[in-house]
């Protein structure tokens, strides 16, 4: 096992030396990989920020359940009992007809309401579902509407559906972009490794004659591809952070004009690790395909 670590350590150092021996080429490759990766990474963060902004601006979606004017106290109590025991709800608030009237009076409609002989407002429940799945809102709407004494259920889920659809579209677009650019990165690494193999053909042939196994010959190329990908990932992270830093101020000012407090957030530790890991994996994949393709032919 220690020999395995030694050989990997040696291959790792060999790959580092090869990267360091051609600084301009390494820099350009890292920039190509980094800039290509920064696009889907920035897209993912944009979607994440938009989702949190939408939640902040619109608040938590609610369902209003209005009882009928002639609903009995038993109907209202039964509805409240059902809401209390419902596991799909995060909470509810009972607004009695008297409380609703007081709120209207406070809202400046006292003169209008003063001319009425009786309170025209019904009892109502403001219900907060657990989660934002549009399907949940639809099923709750149907269930509440079937309860006795319920006159009307107001469900404002259209914006939830639109938001979900938009975010879903955005995520699909980012995935597609990541797939396409990832494929491009695999090709870039494939070609870099192909050139490396061509320039080191003599060394590879001599090593084989001296008893080098295929893993021994392949290891430095795997490390080279992975390190190149990792460097590209670092460039992508730096690009995303620079973008967040540059746009953070203007976006916050824009949000302020809408009365909202909002700050762009960059990639957290998990997202950063994912970007670096994905980049290293793509580099490894490109090198693995290239090595398999170009080292397949045996020495004669």
């Amino acid at each position, binding site marked *: 096992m220690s020999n395995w670590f030694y050989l990997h350590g040696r291959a790792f150092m060999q790959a580092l030396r090869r990267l360091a021996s051609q600084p301009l080429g390494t820099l350009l490759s890292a920039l190509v990989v980094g800039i290509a990766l920064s696009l889907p990474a920035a897209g993912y963060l944009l979607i994440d920020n938009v989702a949190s902004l939408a939640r902040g601006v619109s608040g938590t979606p609610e369902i209003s359940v209005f009882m009928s004017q002639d609903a009995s106290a038993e109907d209202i109590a039964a509805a409240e009992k059902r809401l209390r025991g419902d596991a799909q709800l995060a909470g509810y608030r009972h607004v009695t007809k008297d409380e609703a009237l007081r709120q209207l009076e406070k809202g400046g409609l006292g003169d209008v309401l003063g001319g009425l002989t009786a309170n025209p407002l019904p009892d109502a429940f403001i219900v907060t579902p657990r989660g934002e799945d549009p399907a949940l809102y639809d099923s709750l709407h149907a269930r509440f509407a079937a309860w006795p004494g319920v006159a009307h259920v107001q469900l404002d889920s259209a914006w939830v559906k639109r938001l979900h659809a938009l975010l879903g579209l955005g995520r699909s677009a980012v995935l597609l972009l990541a797939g396409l650019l990832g494929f491009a990165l695999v090709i870039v690494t494939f070609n870099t490794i192909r050139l490396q193999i061509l320039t080191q053909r003599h060394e590879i042939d001599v090593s084989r004659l001296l008893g080098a196994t295929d893993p021994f010959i392949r290891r430095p190329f795997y490390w080279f591809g992975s390190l190149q990908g990792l460097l590209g990932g670092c460039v992508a992270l730096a690009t995303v952070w620079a973008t967040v830093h540059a746009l953070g101020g203007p976006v916050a000012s824009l949000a302020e004009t809408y009365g909202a407090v909002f700050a762009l957030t960059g990639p957290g530790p998990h997202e950063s690790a994912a970007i670096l890991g994905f980049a290293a994996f793509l580099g490894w994949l490109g090198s693995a395909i290239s090595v398999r393709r170009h080292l397949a032919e045996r*020495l004669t």
Partner: protein
Amino acid sequence: MIVFNEVVKQYPGGYTALAGVSFEIRHGELAVLSGHSGAGKSTLLKLIAAIERPTSGSVSINGQNVSALRPRAIPYLRRNLGLVLQEHRLLYDRSVDDNVMLPLVITGHPPRDAAKRVAAALERVGLSGRGREMPAGLSGGEQQRVAIARAIVNRPSILIADEPTAHLDVAYANEIASLFKSFNAAGVTVLVSTHDERLFAQHSPRRLVLHKGLLQGAGA
């Protein structure tokens, strides 16, 4: 021990390099393989190192049938052979030390032990203290010595050399021939191909003469 049993080697296109060769080289022997250009000397050595496969017949090294080896097993066979090839096959962007150390790196020797072995191998071929030099700065004979040091650094039981004295003047060629004799005296089985067997005549080797793919003589 090296055993060839009715070995035929035909190349695509129908050229027959070896046309049924059988011989046996026992442990500790010094054998010289001679013949004109195109007689099949290099092909014979390539079959021993599993660089080529026989069309028919079998090649065995120390009881192991090389012809039937799986590709994965070939590197481990080569690690037990010392190979000195035509044109030296040195890495010219590496120092002499690094060139000689390559077989030890391949087998994963600890660096400190490897450095000692490299120094000993270079001393054995008369290049002590030249390890930091680059091969391009050495003469042809010295480069051949580096290739020989690389072949013996793993302490192989069999040493195979393909025209190690080619392109060398007589003085250098005699030195190289003496080196092989000294390895043989230390117990190493040595098989050397040469176009000029007179170089090894004073060392009383076993003679193998190839002519048009057939063995003409199998004993000294």
